[in-house]
């Protein structure tokens, strides 16, 4: 069975003055109808470039050098520019972190939503305007018939993001890519937008790729999660499994370093656990596993070769030698890790 959207071994490179940056370095994942996949990682891990690559919107010097992006079994990388243009918005749409920079300040929001409809659906001005109001109603903007005449600066941050979502969904795409859609918003507004996205994917059977650095957001709305580090997916797992039993040492470290709002934690005033060191510069990545210098379980063999993705169970893959079947037999390593597990806070 083929997936709605499948990314296979995607490579997007940037030639910079300091050297070649492999921003996206062999990323693979898939997305099915009605499913919400969370793509998480810290700044610079390549999650946004992955999204832009899917839309074929990577700006020079960035270049997609290898891979396949299969939408309904068609490779988007083989489409002509014109074919790709009709694909964007119609089949795959995208929203960004900062709605103010994505909206044009000199047009009303109604005109901007209508523009997509007129281009893709060949609607008349009048029809498009009515459709724009309908689209705004669907994302719960109050008084849409009046709001279509507003300019972006007249709306709050939350309302602007709703307009972006209305615009993205106007042509009824099958996939929505949301790049940090709530990062610029306050928590109470973030809760509104997340609820909206969740409702939309259920009512429209929409597939959502949600890109975020916030593990809390992922835990709330995602079905599956892919964790990225230095351009590679290091772990992919159903959401419950990822949070209950993180496999990759990076995922484990990320989960531990988030302050948890639980009564227990407040009472104990524990120190936050951290991941030592910093993310390496993209032009000076360490050999072998890129996380090795910061990894509490590092072994000499981690520096030797590129680490493949190991399948742990159905739907759970991890890029770490600790899950190499040949090494798992080695009790010394298992003990090493087991020791850390005891000290785990949960």
């Amino acid at each position, binding site marked *: 069975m083929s997936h709605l959207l499948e990314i296979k071994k995607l490579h997007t490179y940037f030639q910079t003055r300091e050297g070649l940056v492999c921003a996206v370095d062999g990323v693979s994942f898939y997305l099915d109808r009605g499913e919400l996949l969370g793509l998480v990682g810290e700044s610079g891990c390549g999650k946004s470039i992955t999204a832009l690559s899917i839309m074929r919107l990577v700006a020079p010097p960035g270049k997609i050098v290898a891979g396949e992006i299969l939408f309904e079994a068609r490779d988007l990388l083989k489409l002509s520019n014109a074919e790709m243009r009709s694909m964007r918005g119609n089949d795959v749409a995208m929203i960004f972190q900062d709605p103010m920079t994505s909206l044009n300040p000199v047009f009303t929001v109604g005109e901007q939503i209508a523009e997509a409809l007129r281009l893709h659906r060949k609607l008349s001005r009048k029809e498009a305007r009515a459709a724009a109001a309908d689209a705004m109603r669907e994302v719960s903007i109050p008084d849409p018939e009046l709001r279509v005449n507003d300019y972006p600066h007249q709306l709050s941050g939350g309302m602007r993001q709703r307009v972006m979502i209305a615009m993205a969904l106007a042509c009824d795409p099958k996939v929505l890519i949301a790049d940090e859609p709530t990062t610029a918003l306050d928590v*109470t507004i973030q809760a509104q937008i997340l609820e909206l996205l969740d409702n939309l994917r259920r009512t429209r059977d929409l597939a959502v790729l949600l890109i975020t650095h916030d593990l809390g957001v992922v835990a709330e709305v995602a079905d599956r999660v892919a964790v990225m580090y230095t351009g590679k997916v290091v772990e992919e797992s159903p959401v419950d499994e990822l949070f209950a039993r993180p496999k990759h040492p990076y995922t484990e470290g990320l989960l531990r370093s988030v302050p948890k*709002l639980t009564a227990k934690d407040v009472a104990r005033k524990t120190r936050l656990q951290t991941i030592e060191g910093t993310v390496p510069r993209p032009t000076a990545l360490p050999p072998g596993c890129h996380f090795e210098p910061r990894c509490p379980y590092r072994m000499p063999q981690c520096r030797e070769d590129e680490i493949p993705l190991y399948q742990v169970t159905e739907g759970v893959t991890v890029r770490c030698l600790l899950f190499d079947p040949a090494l798992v037999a080695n009790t010394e390593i298992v003990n090493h890790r087991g020791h850390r597990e005891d000290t785990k806070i949960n």
Partner: protein
Amino acid sequence: MTDNAANNGKLVQVRGLVKHFPIEGGDDVWRAVDGVSFEILRGETLGLVGESGCGKSTTGRCLLRLIEPTHGDIEFEGRDVTAMGKRELRELRREMQIIFQDPNASLNPRMKIGDIIAEPLVIHGIGDKTERRERVAWLLGKVGLDADYMKRYSHEFSGGQLQRIGVARALALNPKLIVADEPVSALDVSVQAQVVNLLQDLQAEFGLTYLFISHGLAVVEHISTRVAVMYLGRIVEIADAQELYVNPLHPYTLALLSAIPIPDPKQKRDRIILKGDVPTSRNPPSGCRFRTRCPIAIDDCRSIDPELREVAPGHSVACIRVPGYDNAPSVESRTPVGVA
């Protein structure tokens, strides 16, 4: 922890703080801070949380008089900060420092790190060149950086390292109070944890007092002794960090806590999703400012502007719907201000 701090007494006392910003081309004002009273105890961390535009940063800046308050009293160790002249203010700033959200914007890209950290020492005429260099090297060590970094420029560092440099600069004059304005909000989670731990270590070592301003309730809960929640220029609730989390009283605090995404998919909660947007501080609602979004507002909330009252020891709230509020003692003196 709180008992200890109480014995050591108050470091800062704020009464009826008001900051109105004029709006160009009219008599209207933004009521950024509109009658705020609180105290900061020696050695504690007071967390100040709220969403954008609630006035938390303005409050922090008024404390240091980086912006001039419109009204109200600020006392630092019994001295009236609002009445100070330029010279006194300069002396005062040896004792209170600030760390900003964006370390990239708050460090001069054309100065070497060593000169940035030494600048407060130069301004206050402390030490000669050699002594200052030694102090800078010592400070860099304290924030977990290599002393050699003093010869470098800010573009050579990551966000987390830059924030450590900002912390070192704030520490240079050995202050008593540090206002930390969203110090970790721009950092990635793993780095955020490093900086939070650093701030806690330094507090233990130097007996620092923090006003920790943030919109991230989880981080604030983690680092704070007490927490004050702000909404549209007012403090709506203030309590011990643990108490506030276990027993939040104000409907806004409840909504804020329930809106935070929790990194645990098993913990499905009944989320209170607030309707609508935050009104602007130019034209706040009559009566209780939260009533337009409040799930439990009643008619009285339109007319009664609730003051902060202590409903349990150390736990104050400004909401007429909270049981026991009617008979609780008032804890703030909000000078009625007749700015049109």
